[in-house]
Structures are given as C-alpha cells and as structure tokens.
C-alpha cells in the first residue's frame, strides 16, 4: 500500500494532445463562463446565458471539424484510455449539434419558466461534456466517470420544475433507477476487472474470449443490463415514460435523444472493444432485449393518449431498432454493417425526434395541453407546422423518402447481412413492428389532418424564433438525410473504432 504511494512520487505528467481534447476543454470553459456570469448579471439579462451556451456548443464543434479533417488519424491519450478516433469524432459532432438544437428548443421555455436559468445551462453543458467524454473513453473507469457525468445533471434537469409534483416524480424515479443501474453496471465492471486485472478495454478483449466461465457470463450480463437501463430497453424501461412525461419538454427531448444516444455509445464501445469475444453471451441477450423492446414499446405506445408519453414509448421502440443489429454483431462479416447501422440510426433519430419535440413545444404553447387530441385540425390552421409534424412522424415511422427510413433500412440490412436464422426471425419481427408503429404515428397525423379543431380555436400559433430555427434545422436534416441517405450512411460508415473487430 505504502509502496504504491511512494511510486506515485515518480509520477510524470503524460503528454497531452490539446487539439484532441479541445472540444471538451471548450465546453468545460463554457460551463465556467455560464456559472460565473450567472452570479453577476441581472435577471433581465439572463437570456445571455442561453446565447453563451449555444455559442459554446458551436465553438466546440470547430475543433471537432478540424480533428475530422486532420490527417493524423487516431489520437490516443493517457495510455489508450482516452481515444479520439473516427467513431468518437462523428459522435461528438452528433452530440454537439443535437445539444445545440436542444438549446434552441429550451431557450424560450426556460426564460418563461421563472426558474434558475443559469443552473439549467450549467447542468445541460455538464451533461453534454459527459457525453463527449463517453465517445472517447476506452477504459472502464473513464466510461463510468463519463456515464455519471452525463447522468447526474440529467437527474436534476428532470426535476427542474421543482414546484411541480410530476416533475419531482420524474426526477426521483430517474435518479433511483439510474443509480440502481449504475450499481449493477459497476458490479459487472468489477467482475470484468477481476477477470482481466486491467480496466483498459483493449486489455479486456484478450481476456474475455475463449472458454465461457460463469464469472465471464455474469460480468457481461451485468454490464449489458446496466446499459440497458440507460437506453431504456424493455424490461428495464419503466422509468422512461414517467420521467419523460414529468420532465420539462426540452429536457425530455434531451433525455430521449442525447442521453439515450450516449447510452448506446457506451454499450457499443464495451461490446466492440472490450468483450467481442464473449458474443455467445451478449448476442442472445441483446436479441431478446431488442425483440422485447420493439414490441412492448410499440404496443404500449398504441394505447397512449398523451403525446409526450406516446413519444416516450415510441423512443423505447426506436431503441429496439437500434439494438436489433447488435444482436448479430459478431456473426460473419456483419460487424462493420452493424456499427454503421447503429451510428446511422442515431443520426437520423436525433434529427427526427428533436424535430418532433420542437413541434410539441410549439403546439403546446398555444394549446397548453399534452394530449394527442390537442393536435386536432392542426393542419387546417397551422399548415406549416402541420406539414413539418407530418414529416417528422412519417420519418419516425420509417417511410421513404424521409430520414427515418434509412435508419430502419440499414438496421434491416445489417441484420440480414449476418445471414443467420435468428437474424431473419428478428428482421421479420422488426418488419411487423414497423407496421404496428404506424398505428400511433398515423393516429397523430389523423388528428392533425382529419379531425376538427378542439374548442374551435383556430388562432395562429406564435412560434418563437429559436424554435423556428430548430424546426428548420431538424426538418431540413430529416428531408436531406432521407433523399440523400448516403450522407448519414457515410458518417455511419467512417465511424469505426480504431482498435476493434469492427475496425
């Protein structure tokens, strides 16, 4: 014990490639600026904070671009525990852009809410910093730290409306189940460490293949289950509907897109880099999770009358589609196609789902209601918003030529590429589910296009400029990704790990 302490005296600072971690540094600096500025500026100038937050995210996007364009290839820091490879660059870009759209969606909502604006932005940025770290973490410890970094602010954000019982419920439920999931995950990680005597993912890979021992099985199962909570896979999804409904809508958008994507990033990183050799364990497990998640999410969504709750179940079901190809990730040559499909799906899902939340924010400003019925006759009095909402819903349902279809398509393609019977069965389950899904997406479309306006109130919707901008960005992205699917697929294709069986 003592000797390790003495050994620490010889510690030499590692050389840090500041260009590589520039996005993280900029977001961290942004957090400090917002935190300090919040102390000194007057209440009526608090809008500045959202501007600072937005520019921080855009500023952090610049080094992501330069990293992406640089020829240096993979940058490995801290003995390979923090790696900036193509996978992490693509996903950092995705997180920063989605976060920027979420800032746009939040601005008006937060300014009108009379709550602590400064803290909101600090927490939001902190959570995003955690996500950026997650994309590069290649070590059990840094993965766990990143996971907590992104989760803990999110717990608080969910409970943002502190005088609202539902919001409190949302936060507490999310917190309790999230912490429980962390504990399960940590237990799995400790078993992994026990097997490999290392926390570095690439060290794990060699130790975690070959003979299946009970400790390996347990370790993999616990880790997968821990992440399954994070990505709200059935049967670990129970927190999601209540949390989504209770949290402020922009926070729900944040949870259902960014936070969920971060969960998938962590899951994929661990599966691909740390335990590819244990695919006999995790493939069947994910197969079951994917089939259950798609089916239960869809069937439950059919019964919802509250639109946010419906979207909560819909996002669970979409998560099932993202999981679907992972169930065959180690079969034959499918690993590259699977990784591509996961990243592609995350990209189109982010664009579409954020857009749909933008629509809900815009419409609920007028109707003050979260019921699906409050969308009645929307197309007749707000054709622009109605048409955009139709685009987002159709994209979520996976109808060409909108973004969502390329996500679904690449997921099917990856599953079928494996060519196993289990793959075919899962693909058919997925195909049937994509039809069921139209049941509830179509229901909202029916409300907007074919039903009368509730209360006959056909006054126009006043959409604040930031939400308009967010709708414009997401709408354009949804259309463009569908018509030129090569774009999303290209990013999905280049997003490979530097050292993994997918790479």
């Amino acid at each position, binding site marked *: 014990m003592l000797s390790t302490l003495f050994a620490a005296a010889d510690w030499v600072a590692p050389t840090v490639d500041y260009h590589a971690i520039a996005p993280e540094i900029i977001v961290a600096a942004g957090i400090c600026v917002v935190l300090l500025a919040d102390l000194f500026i007057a209440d009526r100038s608090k809008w500045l904070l959202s501007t600072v937050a937005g520019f921080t995210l855009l500023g952090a996007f610049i080094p992501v671009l330069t990293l992406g364009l640089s020829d240096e290839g993979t940058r490995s820091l801290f003995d390979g525990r923090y790696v900036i490879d193509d996978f992490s660059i693509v996903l950092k870009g995705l997180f920063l852009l989605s976060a920027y759209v979420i800032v746009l969606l939040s601005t008006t909502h937060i300014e009108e809410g009379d709550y602590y604006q400064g803290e909101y932005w600090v927490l939001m940025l902190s959570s995003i910093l955690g996500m950026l770290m997650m994309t590069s973490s290649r070590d059990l410890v840094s993965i766990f730290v990143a996971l907590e970094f992104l989760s803990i602010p999110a717990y608080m954000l969910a409970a943002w409306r502190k005088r609202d019982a539902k919001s409190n419920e949302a936060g507490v439920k999310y917190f309790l189940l999230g912490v429980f999931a962390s504990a399960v995950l940590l237990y799995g990680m400790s078993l992994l460490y026990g097997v490999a005597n290392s926390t570095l993912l690439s060290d794990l890979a060699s130790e975690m293949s070959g003979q299946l021992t009970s400790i390996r099985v347990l370790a993999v199962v616990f880790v997968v289950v821990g992440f399954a909570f994070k990505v709200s896979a059935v049967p670990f999804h129970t927190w999601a509907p209540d949390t989504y409904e209770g949290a402020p809508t922009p926070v729900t958008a944040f949870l259902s897109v960014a936070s969920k994507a971060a969960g998938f990033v962590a899951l994929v990183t661990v599966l691909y880099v740390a335990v590819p050799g244990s695919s006999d364990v995790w493939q069947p497990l994910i197969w079951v999770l994917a089939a259950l998640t798609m089916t239960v999410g869809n069937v439950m969504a059919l019964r919802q009358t509250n639109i946010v709750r419906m979207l909560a179940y819909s996002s669970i079901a979409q998560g099932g589609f993202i999981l679907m190809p992972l169930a065959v990730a180690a079969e034959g040559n499918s690993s590259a196609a699977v990784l591509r499909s996961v990243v592609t799906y995350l990209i189109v899902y982010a664009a579409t789902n954020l857009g749909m939340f933008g629509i809900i924010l815009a419409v609920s400003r007028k109707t003050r209601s979260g019921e699906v019925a409050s969308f009645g006759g929307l197309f007749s009095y707000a054709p622009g918003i109605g048409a955009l909402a139709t685009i987002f819903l159709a994209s979520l349902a996976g109808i060409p030529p909108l973004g969502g279809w390329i996500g679904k398509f690449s997921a099917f393609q990856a599953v*079928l590429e494996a060519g196993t019977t289990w793959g075919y069965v899962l693909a058919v389950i997925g195909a049937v589910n994509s039809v069921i899904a139209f049941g509830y997406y179509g229901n909202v479309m029916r409300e907007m296009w074919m039903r009368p306006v509730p209360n006959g109130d056909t006054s126009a919707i006043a959409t604040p400029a930031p939400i308009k901008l967010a709708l414009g960005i997401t709408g354009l992205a949804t259309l463009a990704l569908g018509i030129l699917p*090569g774009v999303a697929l290209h990013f999905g294709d280049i997003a490979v790990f530097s050292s993994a069986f997918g790479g």
Partner: protein
Amino acid sequence: MDILRDHNWVLSVGTFLPLAGVLVMLFIPKVEEQLQKAVALITALATLGVGVYTLTLFNYDRAGEMQFVAQTNWISVIKSTYYIGLDGISLPLYILSMVITVLVMIYSWDHIPSPGNPKAFLMLMLVLQTGMAGTFISQDLILFFVFFELVLLPMYFMIGVWGGENRQYASLKFFLYTMFGSALMLVAFLALFFKTGAESFAIPYLVENGGAIAKNTQVWIFAGMFIGFAVKVPMFPFHTWLPDAHTQAPTQGSVILAAVLLKLGTYGFIRIAIPMLPDAAREWAPYIGLLAVIGIIYGALGCLAQTDMKRLIAFSSVAHMGFVMLGISTLTSFGMNAAVFGMVAHGLITGMLFFVAGSVKDRYHTLEIARLSGLLKQVPHLAWILGFCVMASLGLPGLAGFWGEFPAILSAYSPLSGLSEVTFRVYMVIAAMGTVLAAAYLLWLFQRIAFGEPKPEFGGSTSDAHGHHDHSDHDDAHHNDIHDVTVYEWVAWTPLLIGIVLFGVMPNLLFKLIDPAVAAIVTQIGG
C-alpha cells in the same frame, strides 16, 4: 456532351418536375385558389409535355431494351445507385400516369372535394405523380422501393382528408395493408441482395444473378415479394382494403388509385419478382393463377351483391386485376403481353368509370343504385358515356378492354412448358365464366341506373316523359344540381374515351411496344 446526345435527362425531368410545381405552390398563399389550380395544372401539363417528348425520342425498334438509361451514385455505401431507364413495358404505364394526372387536375378545376383546400390537395397529387412515374422507371431496387412508398402518404391523406364518411377507417386500412406488404417486401429485397453476393441493387444485375439462388431460398424470397405486390394489385385474399379505399376516396383519388396505383403491384411482378426468381416463379405460378381466378369470380360475385355504384366498380377492379394476374401467371410471352395491355386498358376504363361515378355523386349526392334511375333521360350524355365505359369494361371487341381480357384467357390454354396444362385450362374455363358474370353485373348496373324514369326525389316523375328538371312545385336540394356533362368534364374525359377506342381498334400500337420487352423477360424464365 453525352447527356444531350442520349437524352437521358428526360426521365429525371419528367419524374421530378411535379416536385418543382410543389415548391412553387408552397410559396403561394392558400387563399389564391385559382392560382394554385393553374400552377398545378401547368406543372402537370409540362410534365406530360416532357412525357410526350420522351415518346417522340423513344426508339420503337428497340422497345425491348432499356432506353434513356441514366446511372449515377446515390447511396454508394449500400451499393445502391440512382439508376433509371425505360422500356416497352414501362413506357405505356409511365405515360399513363402523366395523362391521368393531367386529366385529374382538369377535373379538379371545379370539383375540389370537401373540405376544400386545393393547395394541399393538388400538392399531394403532384407528389403522387412523382412517386408513380418514378416507380415505373427505377432500375434499382432501393430506388424502386422509395418511389413505391412515396405514393403511400399522399394517398393516405387524400382518402383520409377529402374522402367520404368512413374516410378515416378506409385510409388507415389502406395504409396498414400496403405498409405491411412493403415491409416484408423490403426484407425480401435485402435477402435477394445478400444471396446474390451483396454486389448491387441494380435490377438488371439481380435479374442476371437471381436465378442462381437455390430454389428453396427463392421460394421464400418470392413469398415476401408476393405479399408486397399482391397487396397492391390487390389479389384475393389481400383485396379487402380496396373496396373501402375506393368507396371513401374522393373521385380524383379513386381514379388515380384505379388507373395507376394498382399497376404498381402487377408491374412489380413482371419487372422484379418473376425475372429475378425464375425457379420460384414457376413454383408459385399455379397458386398465383388460382388466386387470380378466385379473384375473378369473387370480384364478379361481389359486384352482383353491391348496392353502391362506386363499390361495385371497386369490386370489378378486383376481377379485372384477376385477369391481369392470370396472364402473368402463365409466364408466357403471350400472357404477359395480355397482362400489360390489360393494365393500360383497365387504367383507362376503370379510371373513366370512377370519373363518371364521381360526377353522378356530384349531381345526385348518392351512389346508391336503388335510388338512381333514368339517367338516360335526365343526363343523357353522362349516361351514354357510362354505357360506353360499361361496354368497354365488359370486354366488348373493338374497345380496349377486350385486348386485355381475351388474350389473358387464351394464354391460359398453353402456359409455360413445365406448368400443368390441365390446371391452367381449368383456370381458363373459370376465367371465361368470369367474363359472362362481368357482362351480367355491368349491364345490370347500367340497366338499373340508366334506364327507366328518373326518380321523383331527383325531379323526375312517372308522368313526365321528358324528364326535364324545371319542377318548381317539388323543388328540393338535389335536383337543382342535376345537369349534364360540363365543359371541364368533357375536357377531362375525352382523351380517355379516345384512348379506349384507339387502343381497341389498333391494339398493335401497344402490343408492338410491349412485346419485345416482355420477350426479354420471358427468356429469363426459360420461356
């Protein structure tokens, strides 16, 4: 300047021009209804103009080959390209879709169905046109799939918003049926892609290499495609969405649905399922034939039982598409010629019948056969047009319908060698009986609504031999509307009527186009 010499831009322009119209309409305020209609009509006319230009450039001596081929990168990651082309099978259907869109636009000039909003209605129609035309020219399965699906949403809204009383049920049913079919179809496409070595989604490539797949696998892949296409056709027993969709759809929707959308399914069989999976096609052919003749008889019996004119025409579509599918199921060049001709003829005739039904509904506010009577006296022109279409529909020689139906029956006499002759000859006899039933239900329909005296509720009375509608004594809401064919209707209908006669008298205009293209496909299946 290869592009200019090969003229391979005409197809892309012809397909996407309607979207340009949509963009323009997007920026015109909703209240400028006349302007909206004008822009939509001009767009449709311009599109048709491009189509006619395509007709003049088409090399009729090489109708069996793909012409105006254009291929460029689209989704290189999954080896799908933007690959289009047109041969003798695609050309008539491609042009048909453009003609129908123009006519429907003309008809819409004074027939925007309730609840109005021509802007959205016409924009949807233009999007629909892009989807239809694109499906017929796609030479890449993914591109085909995208266009095939593109027609879904516009049609869904067209039925659901502008339809009849039961529109929401009908539109959802339409959507779920087709979407279920296409989801399985997509899985089948992907399976085919991987089984041919994951090289390309190009249709010619897959036609060349699909035959090498093991027969058992082929049969399964065919099953997925079969469901996708059979729902669209629709074949018995997947037809139940059709009567609801047709009955509830606005006239324009019904016309487009009958004239073009149903053909997407039969076209899929001819272009994709059969040539790519020849072994499976031979295996499936007797069952397809069986379902086709069941459809013929079932559709005809269904017609006899209908009390609603539009529903009757919808069921007659099931029967007619049965003939088309019977022709396809023989897998012979003769049968497929008949099938493609039948597709075009059905498009013209049934499209026309739905136009007439829509106009009857406009005037009488009902399509209940029992309440209609004496149309010949009250609206003679309309009734004669109906009579003409009825004759065409029942396959009277000299009109287009004959050339779709009669050769289809005849082709079942000698199916592709290897298929059971006995089975197909039984089908032939059953199908022939179907034509008798067709004559029965169509003539009976005509008798009931066109002959006799106009009903008193619509301004006719048994004592009034002239059936004029100036009865101020028992004026009601309906009979003021009852007038004969209007100018817009004449303009919209004349091209169809001419087409029905023209292709009836000179079927070779079409057959010489179709035949080489069909022959190329039949050689794939070893015929």
